[in-house]
């Protein structure tokens, strides 16, 4: 079993990445310190980021990283986090499941030709992804470490030489253009909703109808059976009728005219007229 990464002080392995002076505001850093109890995935940008950090604890060239060992390290991390009842985002769990699958492929003898990729191929691809991510991080740090315009080297400070002919140049950039279009289209989406009223069964209508028919319903009846004729077939009309009839039934329950029953969540809702004789006066 590899060393327990949760217990290992790994901060120093993370360090090379954090030397990038332009980034990583405080709080952005992965937080895995010597204390076994402080397991946090908050600082990681997803499972791949966490895997990369774990891979670094193997202290080998990323090309030589043991993917099997890495899978175990990750699964152990996830188990630990779960034991501590930490909420893990779904993608961490998906990655855990995939790594468990990869582990089994790596450990079991190669299956008969099922056409799927071998465990080694999957492992090679994962190792490649880690190496590529690390390479991009290093490239990003190198890029930001370059001399930058307006900080290390400069364009001319004064803007205008000759003011012979005043000419207005209108300018806009691509972000302006795209924002403008977004704005126009959003405004469109916020226009007052105009619904085809024919598909709407209003609550007033439902209340009127329910008041009339509930008086005859001494037995429990499914809410759906109280819908007006012709409103149950078309989905849009049915939805509207159910919503308004349900709202109307709540209203009548408040007034003490109706009783409502539902056996469990999402079970059918039953209504009946309030049984007067059972009510203590």
């Amino acid at each position, binding site marked *: 079993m590899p060393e327990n990464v949760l217990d290992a002080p790994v901060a120093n392995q993370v360090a090379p990445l954090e030397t990038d002076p332009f980034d990583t505001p405080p709080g952005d850093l992965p937080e895995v310190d010597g204390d076994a109890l402080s397991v946090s995935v908050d600082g990681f940008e997803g499972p791949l980021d966490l895997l990369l950090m774990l891979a670094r604890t193997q202290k080998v060239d990323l090309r030589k990283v043991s993917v099997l060992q890495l899978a175990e390290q990750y699964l152990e991390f996830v188990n630990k986090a779960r034991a501590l009842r930490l909420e893990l985002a779904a993608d961490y769990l998906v990655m855990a499941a995939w790594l468990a699958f990869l582990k089994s492929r790596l450990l079991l003898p190669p299956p008969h030709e099922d056409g799927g990729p071998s465990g080694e191929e999957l492992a090679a691809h994962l190792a490649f992804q880690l190496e590529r991510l690390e390479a991009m991080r290093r490239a990003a740090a190198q890029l930001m470490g370059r001399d930058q315009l307006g900080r290390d080297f400069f364009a001319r400070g*004064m803007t205008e030489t000759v003011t012979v002919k005043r*000419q207005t140049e209108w300018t806009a950039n691509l972000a302006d253009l795209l924002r403008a*279009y977004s704005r126009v289209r*959003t405004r469109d989406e916020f226009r007052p909703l105009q619904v085809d009223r024919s598909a709407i069964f209003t609550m007033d209508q439902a209340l009127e109808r329910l008041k009339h028919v509930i008086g005859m319903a001494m037995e429990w009846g499914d809410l759906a059976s109280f819908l007006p004729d012709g409103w149950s077939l078309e989905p849009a009309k049915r939805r509207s009728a159910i919503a308004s009839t349900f709202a109307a039934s709540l209203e009548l329950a408040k007034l003490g005219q109706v009783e409502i029953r539902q056996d469990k969540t999402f079970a059918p809702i039953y209504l009946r007229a309030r049984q007067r004789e059972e009510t203590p006066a």
Partner: protein
Amino acid sequence: MSLDDLGPEELGPDAPSGVEALFDAPPLPEQERMVEAILFASAEPLSLAQIGERLPHGSDPAEALALLRKRYEGRGVGVAKIGTGWALRTAPDLGFLMRREAKEVRKLSRAAIETLAIIAYHQPATRAEIEEIRGVSLSRGTIDILLELEWIKLGRRRETPGRPVTFVTTQMFLDHFGLASARDLPGIKELRAAGLLDATPPGAEAEEELPPGEDGEIDDMFPEEEAVA
């Protein structure tokens, strides 16, 4: 005599390096380079004292500036005295080359950029269509500015009653916005994904944006606009 009193003349360009060198002014040619960079980058003319403040301790700004003025004599750019300060300026006799630089750069108005965006996405677009999408009538100046910038031009007339003129974007438009073609403009979903569209009103995700420039019929292009009062 302290090191600070040593001008570069005393030490010369071959002054011994070492601990003391940290406190020495750089050689005069280096100071001249420095004055050149300082004047170039400064947004306003600088006095000799201001130049001196920016140079390493012990430098001789007057001497360095004199060298620089000499170097730029007769060049396309020169060291000019402006009030009590010094600045790099283009040579007065070359002013005729610079006329096009004398521009006042202003951000395009909101109406103009929205109009432009609608034309870019829905081209060819008529004035009525632009007004319909923006929900306000279009002022004359808006289209004029865009035409003048040569970001839009007239397209074919629409073969509908009244045969309205249409507007389309130009190659200059593509050049200015760094686009390979109008078809490369992102759709609504992609705009939202890029964070350029902030609000997501309920039900909005159903909307599928037509890729621009697909040349759809006008009726296909604005299907949801019919309900507009």
